[in-house]
């Protein structure tokens, strides 16, 4: 059953990209355990505004776990203390009365802080722009049923394509590597005949862009897979490595 709990929040505040950040502590009373984590943040912000203070800036949009906009390190875990959810799907029933919750932005060289809990993830777009597509333009394509695709491959491609681009994998990786994100895209497309045509080239270009943007190397710690809210498997990284190798051999 739902009840109300009181919380102490330690929240990272930072005025701008170049400013120094700090933790601020806030008290919240009477938060319903039925509310979502972001609704709890709304309550905090309403309280801050009423006190004449600036609310905490945080990213969010769909609030149903699909847009990938929300982020947050909550008590040291990306997307907080629940499995297979994004921060917006996390509910306050996961917390105890009187608990202190530490809330920080993604911390990674690839994702500089913009303000408070908001970071810049444009690097992900740049990696997709480097090759994360099939090179077809609008019109003049074959009938959708012209090429049968095994259901197993299609389903596996779908699993890889479920990545929401949130960046938790990077944030949780001690090397700040974007390999899980990149491998999800490479796998999604390489598994389908439409994407296979340029699979090796895609892998090479995307990895080159990832390196250029300052993401770290993958040392197979597997932390990314654990924190990925969409259950993207590290087996995708193996597939990426295979495609990458193919590209190297072709060079």
């Amino acid at each position, binding site marked *: 059953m739902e009840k109300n709990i009181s919380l102490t929040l330690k929240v990272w505040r930072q*005025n*701008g990209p170049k400013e120094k950040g700090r933790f601020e502590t806030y008290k919240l009373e009477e938060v319903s355990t*039925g*509310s*979502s984590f972001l609704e709890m943040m*709304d309550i905090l*912000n*309403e309280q*801050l*505004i*009423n006190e004449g203070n*600036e*609310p905490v*800036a945080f990213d*969010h*949009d*769909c*609030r*149903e776990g*699909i*847009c990938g*906009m929300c982020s947050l390190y909550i008590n040291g875990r990306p997307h907080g203390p*629940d499995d*297979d959810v994004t921060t917006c*799907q996390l*509910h306050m029933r996961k917390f105890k009365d009187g608990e202190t919750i530490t809330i920080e932005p993604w911390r990674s060289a690839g994702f500089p802080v*913009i*303000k408070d809990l908001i970071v810049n*993830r444009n690097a992900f*777009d740049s990696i*997709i*722009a480097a090759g994360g*597509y*099939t090179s*077809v*333009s*609008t*019109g003049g*394509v*074959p*009938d*959708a*049923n012209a*090429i*049968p*695709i*095994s*259901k197993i491959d*299609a*389903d596996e*491609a*779908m699993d890889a394509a*479920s990545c*929401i*681009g949130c960046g938790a994998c990077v944030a949780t990786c001690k090397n700040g590597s974007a390999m899980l994100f990149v491998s999800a895209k490479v796998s*999604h*497309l390489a598994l*389908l005949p*439409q*994407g296979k045509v340029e699979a090796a080239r895609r892998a090479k270009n995307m990895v080159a862009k990832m390196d250029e943007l300052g993401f770290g190397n993958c040392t197979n710690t597997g932390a990314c897979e654990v924190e990925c809210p969409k259950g993207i498997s590290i087996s995708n990284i193996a597939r990426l490595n295979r495609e990458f190798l193919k590209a190297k051999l072709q060079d």
Partner: protein
Amino acid sequence: MKLDSKIPQGPVAEKWSNYKANQKLVNPANKRKLDIIVVGTGLAGASAAASFGEMGFNVKNFTIQDSPRRAHSIAAQGGINAAKNYPNDGDSIHRLFYDTVKGGDYRAREANVHRLAEVSNDIIDQCVAQGVPFAREYGGLLDNRSFGGAQVSRTFYAKGQTGQQLLIGAYQALMRQVNAGTVDLYTRTEIVDIVMVEGKARGVIARDLVTGEFQRHFGHAVVLATGGYGNAFFLSTNAMGSNGSAAIKAYQKGAAFANPCFAQIHPTCIPVHGEFQSKLTLMSESLRNDGRIWVPKKKEDAEAIRAGKLKPTQIAEEDRDYYLERRYPAFGNLVPRDVASRAAKERCDAGFGVGNTGLAVYLDFKSAIERLGEDAIRARYGNLFQMYEKIVDDNPYETPMMIYPAIHYTMGGIWVDYELQTTVPGLFAAGEANFSDHGANRLGASALMQGLADGYFVLPYTIQNYLADDISTPRMTGDEKEFVEAEKAAKDKFEKLLSIKGNRSVDSIHKELGLVMWDFVGMARNKEGLEKAIEKIAAIKKEFYSNLRIPGSGEGMNVELEKASRLADFIEIGDLMARDALHREESCGGHFREEYQTEEGEAQRQDDKFAYAGCWEYQGEDKAPVMHKEELTFEVVKVAQRNYK
């Protein structure tokens, strides 16, 4: 104001071919000289921007999110329609066209809807070529499911994440053009006004949401693909950032706003459960394929459930009222959304609702699980069930889901002609932002179809017909007086909001607006209530401009300031919706006027008086807008009382 719908000559099935055969085109060398601004990166915006880029135009594409991939389209769950007839169950372009006009309760323009049905098949081909992983059968071919309002299976889907996969397809095509240098992408950038030069739309004023700086951008043409305005209700299934500001700016610059009162209430959303609630979560309509909707037959059972003394699983089969199956035997649980929503409200108002508020009904998978097995249900809806469980903390494989209607989609929007051009020359509107194809009610899986139709297959043709006359118009620098003045006006508006320095947060005022909208401009409307709503909205507007508090300044990122400027526009939209609903003295589709219903409580249209699109023209700050009519004529479709019995 002149409303010229520019419907091409010929029989409805040949209009689009005739149009394309006779339209003006722009040759490749000239395309390079032309700039197009696309506002929005949802399905409509991303597909349009990518296609324009591929064609060789120079494109500037804007989004308020940090990445194009996060546009609200990403959240669409159920699927996308097309007239492929792969299942061989009798579908055709004609049938999709017919169903859409009928589903829209005969308030859409035939010619546009027919074109939509014609290009629907191309969309599926395009998406597959992009690598969209649609669901397949073991034979390797595409799978289809059925959706509300149709008796054929024409819906393509990618698990419960169809919008995500379609948007990622369009996003990838877009990023390919960004890489090719044909599209300049502006993320976290909001369009705050449209710049008019000599009566034509020639650019936009943008605000960088990170720095707070204003920018001037020139375009030979401007496309608004900014989505719907359902968030006027505060609580809706839309993403938090979905807004109607660009539409209102267009309206204030002379674009007609059509049928603002046509908003769709979706029958299957997770019920409201507390005052801190920030949004409502949709449970995809596809669930109605296998889920059965019911409430207890006996009031005392409903009361016991509300008091927590009885569980739904304890109610015997014969004590359940599967009211949709009872009232509409032909369509059963698959009646269109407006019908299903009103039926839920009817049962709850009559005292049979469940949940602790009494504002909920059950969506039960028991028979489907018995018939198909839990695994089959998990394969179909696993992610939706998981989503439900995370929010409600209840296992829908065991206990029926609770659902209730919520605001979901806006059929109304910026008026456009056949070319998707607004009444402002050079200003186009696509996707949910326009009013084009769904009349008074949209069928499930048709918004994704429309957004991608507009962006991939309609605008790339029609915009050329406009731009062909512009090939010798030189680019402007943005220093022209029209740009400078528009920027100043936009800055002043933001300054004004910051200077109010009152006591109330944006959200607190927005919630107040939302309640008025839900109570008086929601699922059931009447004259008295709507008049009251107009007064109340005026009072809210006054409160907003005298008592708003925005901490911080206009420099750097200021989320409250962003929200405030959007709320200012939602207030205008709320007023417009109420006025439109008041004037439309009939019930049709999503617009239900209590005064106009049959004895059985079904919507009653007044075709002799209201077979038109109501198009509102702005008259200036605080002046009542003027309504113009685009009369609708039906050459092919036989107008009849919708009957889903």
